[in-house]
């Protein structure tokens, strides 16, 4: 067991493969990273790189066609991969970590009042009475900035931003130490996005929660990030502190991804990455980015390990 002080989550060689009629999709293929208490890690990548599958693998919300699901996930020192499904449901999901799924504002039950929905996990997991859990719900609504009389409303009576806040309150209400957010702002308007990011920052300061933020929106992700992990074709190719990463990414993919972001406050001409990410059914041998990489050389036909550079890690032979 690993129990470094302050360490909240340690993932080692997490693998999630799906079986399809065309072959095995290697959606998550050997992901490692660590997260400390009250930190936020941002997992950035293009669509189809396995970001959402990673969130499903962490929360063990698996479809039926799983081919391989293995690795170690230490949450506060316990390897939760060793638990059976019932133990996992009772001790990890909601209590240890919870998920705000993609398009969470559309994931609310349309025929339940939002107060009842948000109090449900409290009643089930913390065993509190209806009145006690509503009290907790009120407290959480204050944290995320939802007016208290909204508990009596149905989801369709709320705006998109308010529904997103309710989904966030629901993930927070059982006070888990870790929240996984899958694209929390992608369907929201600009000002609403800024509001939600403010709420997340405030929660991080006030409640000491840690976050895994999964997104493709690099600019918005920098609002919350302490650490950055770049994902490409099912693997993490670079990790590091946000303060080191944003000014100078190391991996060629990260560099090109950063260069593709249009910026409001700079005159730089954005670039784009030619070609497409490889199919996860038959990922290329060696470095998976090699086919699109302008710096490739002979060595790239072998798979690079994670090279450590100070407190940064990068999966690229250029940094050997």
């Amino acid at each position, binding site marked *: 067991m690993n129990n470094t002080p302050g360490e909240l989550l340690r993932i080692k060689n997490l693998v999630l493969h799906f079986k399809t009629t065309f072959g095995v999709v290697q959606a998550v293929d050997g992901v490692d990273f660590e997260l400390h208490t009250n930190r936020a890690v941002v997992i950035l990548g293009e669509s189809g790189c396995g970001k959402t599958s990673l969130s499903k693998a962490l929360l063990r919300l698996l479809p039926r066609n799983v081919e391989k699901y293995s690795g170690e996930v230490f949450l506060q020192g316990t390897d939760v991969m060793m638990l059976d499904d019932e133990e996992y449901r009772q001790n990890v999901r909601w209590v240890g970590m919870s998920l705000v799924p993609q398009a969470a504002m559309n994931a609310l039950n349309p025929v339940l009042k939002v107060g009842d929905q948000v109090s449900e996990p409290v009643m089930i997991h913390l065993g509190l009475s209806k009145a006690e859990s509503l009290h907790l719900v009120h407290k959480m609504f204050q944290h995320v900035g939802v007016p208290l009389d909204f508990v009596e409303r149905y989801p369709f009576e709320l705006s998109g931003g308010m529904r997103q806040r309710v989904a966030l309150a629901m993930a927070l209400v059982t006070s888990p130490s870790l929240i996984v957010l899958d694209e929390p702002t992608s369907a929201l308007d600009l*000002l609403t996005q800024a509001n939600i990011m403010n709420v997340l920052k405030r929660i991080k300061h006030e409640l000491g929660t840690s976050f895994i933020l999964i997104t493709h929106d690099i600019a918005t992700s920098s*609002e919350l990030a302490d650490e950055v992990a770049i994902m490409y074709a099912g693997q993490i190719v670079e990790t590091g502190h946000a303060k080191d990463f944003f000014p100078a990414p190391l991996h060629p993919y990260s560099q090109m*991804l950063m260069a593709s972001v249009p910026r409001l406050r700079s005159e730089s001409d954005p670039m*784009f990455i030619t070609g497409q990410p490889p199919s996860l059914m038959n990922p290329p041998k060696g470095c998976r980015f090699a086919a699109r990489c302008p710096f490739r050389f002979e060595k790239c036909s072998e798979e690079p390990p994670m090279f450590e550079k100070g407190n940064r890690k990068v999966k690229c032979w250029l940094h050997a």
Partner: protein
Amino acid sequence: MTLKTEEPREILLSIRDLHVWYELRRFGFGRVGSVKAVDGVSFELAEGETVAVVGESGCGKSSLMKTILGLNIPTSGDVVFDGKNLSQLNNKDMRSYRFEVGYVQQDPYSALPPFMNIEQILEEPLIISGVKNKAERLDRIRKVMGEVKLHPPEDFLTKFPHMLSGGQQQRIVIARAMILEPKLIVADEPVSMLDASVRVEILKLLHALQEKYNLTVIYITHDLSTVKYFSARIFVMYAGNLIEKGETRRLLENPLHPYTMALLAATSDPDARNADSFKEVPPGEPPSLVNPPKGCRFHPRCSHSMPGLCDEKFPPDFEPEPEHFVACWLYQPK
């Protein structure tokens, strides 16, 4: 009210005091009010001009665009395209008008029919517009596919939309909008559904086509960071009105309307320092378009609101600097 262009170019599109209201009925009859989606919008576009309409969802961008495309009938006001007033066109002329405007949809996957292959998708507008010769149709399809950089066309013609990546699908949507050689293209958030790495590619492609064919393009977006790579002018829309109009660089460097300032402040650039501070966001949400606030529609959220003025009288367009118009009482000449 209208914008002058620097060199006297031919005016292609002119919108005059346009109102698009949708009636609300209770139980299918009996009017109970109307949604004032577009409420008094006027502007002119010269041939070859590019403009971005920026605003949040529900501000009336899509209603404005649909009215320009001739899909909505305006409640009052005029859309004049190339000297023809849309409301006076008969069905036949309306059809030929539709051949002169192209539409690039937001979500390429739902904009392409899943049961048609690329050749059929691109051929259909040609058949409808009366190109009888199959060889000529194929010729034009090949040409337009070259324009959107799908090489070689043969690789794509027999494919169905789901076999293409998001970027390729959006190229097909652009090709379909371009194939009848329109004068005006309306692009409704053409890159918001795409990955960051291909967004810029598609915007640059649209820009290159715009320059090559001297197209007039209306680019509808909520993302201010992409605007400067594409359009010469920006119109900011809030609750059915255009509240600020100006040349792109000037507007981005010196926003005048408090709402425009809030939009710019909320747009992040990737920078680790963002995590250290909170963003300033105006309180509240955009108003209901059924009963918009009296006076300036932004006044309930505005920190500069002047009681007795902003909540009473709707601000006209002021011009505090040349070619930069703003509907805000703060800029009333003394």
